[in-house]
């Protein structure tokens, strides 16, 4: 009997730690660099194309990307890597020169002039 109780306890603990670790719908806020509506599209698409990412919404002003991910399938680093591959910097991963150079001229967020140009429009 004791054994069974222990077993159940262990199982529960196991399940609950599992549940804590890997949420099916985990919300993350990532800071992603970018400047414009085109960036928004590219960032959201890159995030969504990561397997396990369910939802992605990037705010042009705050640079915050809200993603909802299935932690059993992906994690923050993977998302950031994909964003970097698409040319966008995050704290966890920086875009390579090639990826950044491939961005459209109006999306060169590392360039102060481009940023100013966008702010003027707003």
């Amino acid at each position, binding site marked *: 009997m004791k054994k069974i109780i222990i077993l159940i306890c262990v199982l529960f603990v196991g399940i609950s730690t599992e549940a804590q670790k890997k949420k099916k719908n985990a919300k993350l806020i990532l800071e992603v660099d970018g400047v414009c509506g085109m960036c928004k599209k590219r960032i959201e698409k890159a995030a969504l194309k990561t397997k396990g990412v369910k*939802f992605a919404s990037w705010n042009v002003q705050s640079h915050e990307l809200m993603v*909802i991910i299935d932690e059993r399938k992906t994690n923050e680093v993977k998302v950031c890597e994909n964003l970097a591959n698409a040319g966008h910097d995050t704290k966890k991963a920086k875009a390579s020169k090639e990826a950044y150079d491939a961005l459209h001229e109006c999306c060169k967020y590392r360039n102060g002039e481009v940023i100013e140009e966008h702010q003027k429009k707003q």
Partner: protein
Amino acid sequence: MEKKIIFSIFFVLGFLQVFAQQTLKGKVTDKDKQGILGANIYWLNTSVGVTTNEEGKFQIPYKSIYKKIVISFVGFKTDTLVVKEVNFLTHVLKEESVLEEVAITAQKKATSRSFLQTQNVFTVNSEELLKAACCNLAESFETNPSIDVNFSDALTGTRQIQMLGLNSPYLLIAQENIPMVRGASQVYGLTFTPGTWVESIQITKGAGSVVNGFESISGQINAELVKPFSDKKFFINGYGNLNGRLELNTHFNHKINKKWHTGLYIHGNIRTEKFDKNKDGFLDTPLAEQINVMNRWQFTNNETGWVSFLNFRFLNDRKQTGQLNFNPDLHKGSNTIWGSEIKTKRFDFSGKVGYVFPELPFQSMGLQIAFSNHDQESYFGLRDYNINHQSVYSNFIFNSIIGDTRHKFKTGLSVTYDKYNELVETTNFDRNENSLGAFFEYAYDNTENFSATLGVRLDHHNLLGTFVTPRMHLRYVPWEKGVLRASIGRGKRSANIFAENQQLFASSRQININNSGGNIYGLNPEIAWNYGVSFLQGFRFLDEKGDISLDFYQTNFENQVVVDWENPQQISFYNLEGRSVANSFQLETNYRLNHHFNLRLAYKFFDVTTDYVSGNFSKPIQPKHRFFTNLSAETHKRKKGSQWKFDATYNFIGKQRLPNTNSNPTQFQLAEYSKGYSLLNAQMTRIFSENFEVYVGGENMTNVKQKNPILGSENPFGANFDSTIVYAPIFGSTFYAGFRFKID
């Protein structure tokens, strides 16, 4: 060695020091200039950050490599600023919700043709609705070429709308996505929604979504009404025109607490003056009075994700028409003076509850429930027509995703119940309809250039049987600002032959139903497929924006209840045997000439043919060609919001085939075709301030009139009386004026 290290550390630190010497000082406030305590300030992509003190002031180290500073505080919009010089920085944070509202008003365009939606949707916003100041939903489409407005009969002057060459019964007309103008209210229903109640209209051409039912065939019109939360606190609109029509609209909106808002909307209109400009002894426009009251309750709880709407509406409408000296009290039922009265009482309740899963913005569910009781009592000369229609509609919708938001779906269940009691002359036609259905709609969007919607529903209906309704929409962007769309879908409905063709009662035509043993008046349900393709291209010309669109739609009836007017002594209803096809083609362009002028041009071609018993003919009173143009202009907004606005709409309506009248005595015969004619409407609005504006305008300014709209008007109880063949305005030109006053 050690020395070296220490030295280099000092060197590095000293070096850093040089850079860090500068500090950026600033202040963060809210919109009332109050300092915000505890706002976060940091350089983007660094860990250098500070918070503000009680006065909202801060100091943060500055280096020239820092370019962007982020300022954030809970409940306010996060801002990222570019810093080029180290000057004192004052920044006003905006409250989150405030900014969103501002953004919405800034984006508002009077009309918009969507580049992003999968379906071919045209949105008409409140600003556009103001261009045709009159008066109810039926009259709101004058500045819109996708919808054609026709005159249904010579007596009531009711405007019938059409899309793709098909009458309104083939459209799904919904109010906030709940089917509304249907069944007994088909003909007059659109006139029962006052124009000021309408916030925006979405017009979808072709097959609709399976979510709203199986009935729509050629398109959908959805009217969003003003909402207690966003409508002005108080609004009043008065309107009067030279043909004796007076209207008054008032809105009161009240915030009860954070979650509940309520609104009371009252409409009244009246016309007591008698006109007979064409001297045929009949009123040119009916005498009318209407009281229409709506009460809305809106509930929103952003924390829990629940939203809800409750609506109550009551309508009392009376129209009187016929010969000038007809007095209902004396002459009802007499066979010396012809007259008609249509009295409608209607009660509506609708409720919606929606829930957005707080942690899952892509998942939501909603329940719509509506009940209505529509009661029309009427007589047309010696013919009585009464209809009572009780309707219950409920629809449950669940939205979510498959994997990620590129794959969305909607699924749910719907239950409907309709009870009809009809009296036609001396015969009763009673019927009950009920249906239970389930639907599933999958939407794919690759977020770039392709999206698709595939929908299917399965319904079990007591009179229409068990059937499947498939619908599909595709959207493809081949190049920048170009959108190619295609749609296909099936619709099925029971035709309310009398309610939809009420004008027939104002004639001496004998009513024939060729009973084929079907379930609805002995007739079979109507079934049609609609196919469409459209192409939209946005462009820039002389540095101004414009778009051009081209579409082609075909509606192909598997079965139709044919309404046959081809024998002037009869009107016959029978099941289609053979072909009935409606083709429509439209070419439209919208172009902003400069900051002040907008131009819209459209050409429309219709080819609507049906196999009648007597042969294959084009649909009567349907022009093949229509040309439309709308020019609007506005002056710059002055300080207090004062402004002038001008708007003119020109329509050319091509020749129309008239129903065959060859078997009538010669004096009651009509030509085979009517002549083409032009209509011109114009309006001018003077906005004095945000609160007050007045407008004047004219309709049918070139004074086009149909001669002898009523056949046999000298003997309305004789064999040749017919007021159903109307292809042009009866009244001629009219002018109106009105005002709007609002307090927010």
